C-alpha cells in the first residue's frame, strides 16, 4: 500500500508521469486512507470508488500509449458536496436533496481537473447550503479537526480542509462566500484560495450568494496550490511579482487570541517590521456582507422554505427564513456601501501589493463550546468565525489563506491582493513558504 498521507500534488503527478507509480495505485491508496481516517473525522460524505478507479485506469492507459495525461496526472482529490458530479445528486450538504435527480454532467471545475489528469475520489462534508463556519451538518455530522478531534475543522468547506489536512487527499475543492475556504484552511493548518470573484468556473456549483460565491482549492503547500489553481484558471497573469506587504490593523488587530497576535507580530518582524494599515469602516463592511448574504441566500431558498421548512437543518433554516424577510432597501444600502469600502481598499492597495490579515481570531473552537470571544462576550462560532474574512470577500479580492508556523493548534493568515493578481499572489505565498514564514502543519505525525 502506498502511504499517501504526506504526498503532495506535485509529488503524486511526478510519480505517475515518470512511471514510478500507477494512477490506480494512488487512487487505491487514497480510498484506503479515507477508510482508515474518515470514521474519526467525518470529512468524506461519499467515496466514488468505481469512478476513481476508472479515471485512474484511463490515466494509466494514456501513459502506456505514450500520451501525457496532464499536469495533475493521477492525483486523487475530492470536492465539497456542492459540485455537480455526473450521476449523483448534488446535495449541498442538505438531507432534503439527497434524493434529488442526479447531475447530468460534471461541474466545469471537475471537467478541467479531469482533463489535466486528476482523479475524483470523494465528495466532502459542509455546512448545509454553505451557511456556516463550522461544518456542523445535521445529516452527515460534525467534521472534526484532524489536529484535535474535540474541535471544529471550520467551515463551510470543512470536509475539504480536514480531508487534506488528515492526508486523505493531496488536494480538494471548496467554495468561499464569506470565508468558507479561508477559515477551515486556517483552522486545519493548510493552504486555501479565495480567487478574484468569478475568475474560476462556478458552473455546476450549487449557489448560495451569487454576488460573493467563489470556488477554490485546498493543498498542503503553496507550490501545490499554484499547480491546481493554474489548471482551474486555464491561464495565468504574467504581471510583475508582488512585494510591498503591509499588515492590516484596527479591526483586524482587535479580538485576537494572544497566540495569533504573537504569530502575526513574529511574521511582521521577519518581514522587516511591516507597516500597519488601518482601513476605515471595516465593521460596516462586515455587516454589509452579513446582510447581503442573508438577503440573497434567503431569497434563493424562499419558496422551498415556505413549502417545507422542517426539511432544512435547523441551524441553517432559521437564518435563511430571517434573511428571506429582509426588505429590498437594506440590500441596496449594503451594495451601495460596497462601492465606498472598495475605494478605501483600493487606496491601500495602491501603496501595498499584499495586505496581511488574520484569517481567524485564533485556533479552532471546541465542539462542546461553539463560541468565540468578540468584545469580551462569547458569540456563536457558526455565524461569527468570519469576522476577518467577510470584509475582504465582500469586495471580491483574491486571497490566499496561509498557515502560520505555530506551536500547538493551527492558525493562518490571509494574503490579500488587488483583483486579477491571483497567480502572483500564490507566487508570493510560495516565496514566504520558501523562507519558512508560512508552513502547513502536519497532523501530529
Amino acid at each position, binding site marked *: 500500500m502506498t502511504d499517501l498521507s504526506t504526498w503532495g500534488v506535485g509529488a503524486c503527478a511526478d510519480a505517475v508521469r515518470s512511471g514510478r507509480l500507477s494512477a490506480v495505485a494512488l487512487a487505491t491508496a487514497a480510498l484506503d486512507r479515507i477508510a482508515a481516517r474518515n470514521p474519526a473525522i467525518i470529512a468524506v460524505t461519499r467515496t466514488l470508488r468505481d469512478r476513481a478507479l476508472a479515471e485512474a485506469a484511463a490515466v494509466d492507459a494514456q501513459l502506456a500509449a505514450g500520451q501525457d495525461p496532464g499536469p495533475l496526472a493521477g492525483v486523487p482529490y475530492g470536492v465539497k458536496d456542492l459540485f455537480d458530479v455526473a450521476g449523483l445528486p448534488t446535495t449541498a450538504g442538505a438531507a432534503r436533496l439527497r434524493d434529488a435527480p442526479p447531475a447530468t454532467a460534471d461541474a466545469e471545475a471537475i471537467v478541467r481537473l479531469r482533463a489535466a489528469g486528476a482523479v475524483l475520489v470523494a465528495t466532502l462534508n459542509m455546512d448545509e447550503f454553505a451557511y456556516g463556519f463550522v461544518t456542523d451538518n445535521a445529516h452527515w455530522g460534525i467534521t472534526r479537526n484532524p489536529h484535535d478531534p474535540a474541535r471544529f475543522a471550520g467551515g463551510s468547506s470543512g470536509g475539504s480542509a480536514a480531508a487534506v489536512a488528515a492526508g486523505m487527499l493531496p488536494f480538494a475543492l471548496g467554495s468561499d462566500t464569506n470565508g468558507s475556504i479561508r477559515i477551515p484552511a486556517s483552522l486545519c493548518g493548510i493552504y486555501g484560495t479565495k480567487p478574484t470573484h468569478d475568475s474560476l468556473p462556478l458552473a455546476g456549483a450549487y449557489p448560495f450568494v451569487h454576488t460573493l460565491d467563489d470556488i477554490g482549492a485546498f493543498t498542503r503547500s503553496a507550490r501545490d496550490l499554484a499547480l491546481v489553481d493554474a489548471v482551474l484558471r486555464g491561464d495565468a497573469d504574467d504581471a510583475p511579482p508582488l512585494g510591498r506587504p503591509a499588515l492590516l490593523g484596527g479591526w483586524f488587530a482587535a479580538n485576537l487570541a494572544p497566540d495569533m497576535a504573537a504569530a502575526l507580530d513574529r511574521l511582521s518582524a521577519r518581514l522587516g517590521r511591516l507597516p500597519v494599515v488601518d482601513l476605515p469602516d471595516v465593521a460596516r463592511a462586515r455587516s454589509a456582507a452579513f446582510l447581503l448574504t442573508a438577503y440573497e441566500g434567503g431569497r434563493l431558498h424562499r419558496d422551498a*422554505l415556505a413549502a417545507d421548512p422542517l426539511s432544512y437543518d435547523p441551524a441553517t433554516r*432559521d437564518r435563511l427564513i430571517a434573511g*428571506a424577510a*429582509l426588505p429590498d432597501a*437594506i440590500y441596496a444600502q449594503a451594495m451601495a456601501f460596497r462601492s465606498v469600502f472598495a475605494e478605501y481598499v483600493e487606496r491601500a492597495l495602491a501603496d501595498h501589493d499584499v495586505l496581511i490579515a488574520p484569517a481567524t481570531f485564533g485556533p479552532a473552537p471546541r465542539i462542546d463550546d461553539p463560541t468565540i470571544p468578540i468584545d469580551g462576550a462569547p458569540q456563536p462560532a457558526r455565524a461569527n468565525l468570519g469576522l476577518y474574512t467577510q470584509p475582504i470577500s465582500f469586495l471580491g479580492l483574491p486571497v490566499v489563506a496561509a498557515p502560520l508556523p505555530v506551536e500547538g493548534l493551527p492558525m493562518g493568515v490571509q494574503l490579500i491582493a488587488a483583483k486579477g493578481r491571483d497567480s502572483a499572489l500564490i507566487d508570493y505565498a510560495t516565496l514566504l513558504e520558501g523562507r519558512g514564514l508560512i508552513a502547513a502543519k502536519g497532523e501530529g505525525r
Partner: protein
Amino acid sequence: MNPDTPPFAPLFTQTADVDLAAEIAARIGMDLPDACVAGVAANARLLQGHADLLRGGQA
C-alpha cells in the same frame, strides 16, 4: 427596490418572539412551525443589529 420601505426604517416592526416571527412569516408567505419561532426571532434581531451598524456606523 420596494418604494414603500424608507431607507432607515427598522427591518422589522415587532419585538416579541412570536410577533416578530409572525411578521416574518407573513412577509415570506409561509406558515412558520413553532420549532422555528425562537431561532427566526434571534436571527432577525442579529440582522437588525447589523443593519443599525451599516446605517449608522455603530450597533
